[in-house]
């Protein structure tokens, strides 16, 4: 018995010695996951206080009133190996399809959010080509990237995506410059005629937590938009964002200008409150309407939003009040036109 016990102890010690020696082998660095998967899923309920079924406030998304509706499922995959990168991101659902771009003739049941390749030519210079989310503006299509669930007039009427070729030079972490050439129209997989829209972005980060982007997008077919997007994390809890833009349609076809403020305050790591206050003006006397705001008219829109996080899920209740001047773009419950509209939205977004 004693011999067996001693033998087993000796064997165990030999095994452990082997294991201990094994730790001196070079172990791998933290594993690169290879392909990175990411995305989101969103759904919402919207109540129009005037009881209207059709969207009274005609900014993008969250515009199916008195209904439990869906946004989209967004599925992305990304890989960077050494200096080469690709990103592919597809969305399925109203938010990613006909609410994002005019429904194309090919009747796609999906929409490409990002499909591009990139290469680091040097430590500081990068080139990217393909169909990319626009670099213009504060808000984006993916709901996981926005604090508010409904969107601003500036977002709705600006570009969503641009296909093209761009070069970005990073002078430092605090200063970079992008210049590129893009298809003649926004939000199209293919140009109608040529690749003729110029795009540029100057990024500065004057202090820690403050990033500012000065953007320009100009083409003879797509018009010219100048845009300033900036956000400053002033304290751990308080963040202020600003978006200001002006757009001139081609051939004196009208345009818009506006500014939006995004103060946000984190009550805890799970709960944050935010306000979006926006002023938007259809800046010319003639031309088309922008989100039902006719030429010469303007709108002030206030959206009070909470973000409540539970794991990967974010609940987004928000109340919104839009008030127009010089026009009555909204509809009352009795069907008569009115200057103001209001709505409540409760959305749930799962990001991964």
């Amino acid at each position, binding site marked *: 018995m*004693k011999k067996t016990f*001693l033998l087993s*102890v*000796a064997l*165990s*010690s030999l095994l*452990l*010695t082997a*294991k*201990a020696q094994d*730790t*001196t082998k*070079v*172990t*791998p*660095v*933290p*594993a*690169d*996951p*290879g*392909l*990175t*998967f*990411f995305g989101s899923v969103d759904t919402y309920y919207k109540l129009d206080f005037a009881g209207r079924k059709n969207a009274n406030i005609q900014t993008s998304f969250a515009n199916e009133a008195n209904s439990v509706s869906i946004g989209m499922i967004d599925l*992305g995959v*990304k890989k960077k190996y050494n200096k080469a990168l690709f*990103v592919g*991101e597809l969305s399925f659902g109203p938010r990613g399809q006909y609410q994002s771009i005019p429904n194309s003739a090919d009747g796609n049941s999906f929409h490409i*959010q*990002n499909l*591009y390749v990139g290469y680091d030519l040097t430590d500081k210079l990068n080139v990217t080509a393909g169909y*990319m*989310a*626009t*670099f213009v503006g504060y808000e*984006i299509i*993916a709901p*996981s*990237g926005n604090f508010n669930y409904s969107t601003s007039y500036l977002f709705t009427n600006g570009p969503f995506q641009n296909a093209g070729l761009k070069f970005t030079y990073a002078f430092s972490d605090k200063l970079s410059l992008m210049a590129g050439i893009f298809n003649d129209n926004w939000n199209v997989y293919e140009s109608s005629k040529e690749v003729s829209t110029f795009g540029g972005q100057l990024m500065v*980060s004057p202090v*820690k*937590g*403050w*990033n500012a982007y000065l953007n320009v997008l100009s083409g003879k077919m797509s018009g010219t938009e100048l845009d300033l997007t900036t*956000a*400053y*994390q*002033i304290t*751990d809890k308080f*963040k202020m964002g600003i978006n200001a833009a002006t757009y001139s349609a081609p051939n004196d076809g009208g345009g818009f200008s506006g500014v939006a403020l995004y103060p946000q305050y984190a009550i805890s*790591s799970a709960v944050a409150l935010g306000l979006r206050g926006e002023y938007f003006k259809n800046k010319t006397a003639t031309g088309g309407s922008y989100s039902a705001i006719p030429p010469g008219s303007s709108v002030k829109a206030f959206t009070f939003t909470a973000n409540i996080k539970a794991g990967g899920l974010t609940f987004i209740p928000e109340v919104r009040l839009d008030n127009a001047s010089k026009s009555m773009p909204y509809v009352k419950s009795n069907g008569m036109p009115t200057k103001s509209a209001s709505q409540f939205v409760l959305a749930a977004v799962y*990001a*991964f």
Partner: protein
Amino acid sequence: MKKLYTILIALLLSISSYAQKNTLTTGDDGKLMYYHVSNMPAADTSRSLAAAKAFLKKYYPDIKPTKDQPINGSSLNAKGKLTLYSKGLIAGQEDGLLQFDLTIAFKEAKYRVMATNLIYLPLQRNRFGLFTPVPGISYTLEELSKKVKDTQYENYTRQITTFFGYLDQQLFRYLTNTETKQAKPLGTKRISTKDW
């Protein structure tokens, strides 16, 4: 016989403790750091320093030596970043970035690897599908332990110790192989003008 049992059990315990993984330690300033001292065959400090610099350039080009190196000429200071991944159901995802100061110091027949000033920057997905630091938000590793779940924190610290442990072992092999021993020393020998 009892003595024999006692010796065997002590032997088992000592072996199993040797098999423990590297962990982060607390430095003089009360902050977490990676710290490991290795013995190596005695070599000219200047030559070892040149080898350490060449090692970083070859294997870790993103860990850049700082412009202001210590005057004593026996250590190399560098700064770097390490991507930390979360565990996913299918695959991991970039979750955070660890900023660190790396010091490789030589003294007599030994050297030490220190990673200090460990700062965690959370990452968020941007519009282009890339993961970038959240502007203005950063935590020391000590603060991070209160901000994230225990399992997430353990996952991060495991990745950090694995990374520096790997770098450390790679450096040991590099410094002790014959090819490296022939590395050219750094320019002229530095002196301290304070002590004379």
